[in-house]
C-alpha cells in the first residue's frame, strides 16, 4: 500500500523539480539555453506520462472533497484529519451519554412501574423476559 504512494511521490517530486529548473532557465533566458529548455519540456511530458501510469495503482483511493478546500485555502490537510477524529470522538461521547441516560431511565421506570402496577409489570416481564440490570 505504501509502495504505490512512494512511487507516486517520487515521480511528483521529480516533476516539480523539473518545473522549478525550467522556471530558472526561463527567468533569464539566453540563446544557448534553448536546448536545455527543449529537454526540460520533454522531461515534463515524460513526467506526466509516469504520473499517469501511477493512476492505475491508485484507482481505489478516494479523497474527500473537503480536503481540497483546505489545500485551496493554503491550510495543512492534516488539520482535516484532526478535525474528523475530534468530531467523531465528540459524537461518540454524545451518543454514549444518551445511551447511558436512557438505560438509567429505563431501569428507573421499570422499578417505579413495578411499585405502582406490580401485577402488570410481572406480566410484562413474563412477555419480555427479565431485562438485564443496567
Amino acid at each position, binding site marked *: 500500500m505504501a509502495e504505490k504512494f512512494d512511487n507516486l511521490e517520487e515521480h511528483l517530486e521529480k516533476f516539480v523539480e523539473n518545473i522549478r529548473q525550467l522556471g530558472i532557465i526561463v527567468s533569464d533566458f*539566453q540563446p544557448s539555453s534553448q536546448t*536545455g529548455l*527543449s529537454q526540460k519540456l520533454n522531461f515534463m511530458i515524460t513526467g506526466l506520462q509516469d504520473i499517469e501510469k501511477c493512476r492505475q495503482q491508485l484507482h481505489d483511493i478516494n479523497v474527500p472533497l473537503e480536503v481540497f478546500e483546505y489545500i485551496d485555502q493554503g491550510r495543512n490537510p492534516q488539520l482535516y484529519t484532526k478535525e474528523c477524529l475530534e468530531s467523531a470522538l465528540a459524537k461518540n461521547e454524545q451518543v454514549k451519554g444518551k445511551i447511558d441516560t436512557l438505560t438509567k431511565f429505563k431501569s428507573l421506570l421499570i422499578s417505579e412501574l413495578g411499585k*405502582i402496577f406490580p401485577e402488570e409489570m410481572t406480566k410484562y416481564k413474563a412477555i419480555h423476559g427479565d431485562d438485564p440490570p443496567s
Partner: protein
Amino acid sequence: MTEIFSLYGQPDSQGPAGPSALGFGSGKPQVPQNMGPMCFPHQMVDEGGPIRKPAAMNEPFYLLRELPMENELTGHTNLITHYNLEHAYNKFCGKKVKEKLSNFLPELPGMIDSPGIQDNSSLRSVIEKPPVCNNSFSPLTGAMLTGFRLHTGPLPEQYRLMHIQPPKKKNKHKHKHHRPQDPLPPETPSDSDHKKKKKKKDDDPDRKKKKKDKKKKKNRHSPDHPGMTGAQPSSSSLR
C-alpha cells in the same frame, strides 16, 4: 398518573377519548369503539416497526412491540479503540498540527500558502472545469518546439515573483547552501551563467545605487561637466 388510570382499566361505554381530550391536536377521525380500553388516537401510533404479537397473548397490553435487535457496535463503545485508530488520534490530536500548507510540503517551491483563488490555481477549479486534453501525452517534435523560442533577457517584473519562496527562518542557511547544489545537467553550461547572473541580479539594486554614486562623483570631478556653479574655480573665472 390519573390519565394512565383512566386509560388503563375503566370500561368506557361512551367510547374512547378523542384526541382533543388527551391534549393532542385535532383533525383526525376518532378511533372505532370496538378497540378496547387501552387505545391511543391514530396519530400517537408509530407506523411500521417489528411484527406485533396477537392481542390475546399480550393482554392487557395491546400495543406491545418486540424489542429491537441488539446491535453489537453502538455509540456505547469507543469507536477509535474499536477501529485501532489510537495511534492516528495521538499523532494528529496529541501534537500540535501546523496550520500552513508549507509545513506539510516544505520542499515544494513557490508561494503555496496563499489561497488558490488569488492566482487561479485552485483544485476546485480543476474539478469543476477539467481542462480539455487528449487521452495520451506525446513528446514535442522539432516543429512544435519552435513555438518555445524565447526572447533573451530577464522576465518582466510582473512575472518574476512566481518562483520566489517565502523566507524560512530555520532553513535560511540550508536554503542558501542547498540551491547552488541543485543537480542541474552538465549539458547546459549556460545554467552556471544563469546562477552567476542570478547572484548579480540580487545585487542589482545595490549595484545601481553604487553606480549612481560613482557617476555623481565622476561628474563632480570632471572638467567637461556642464552647469557646475561655484564648485570649480575655473568656471567662476570664465564668468
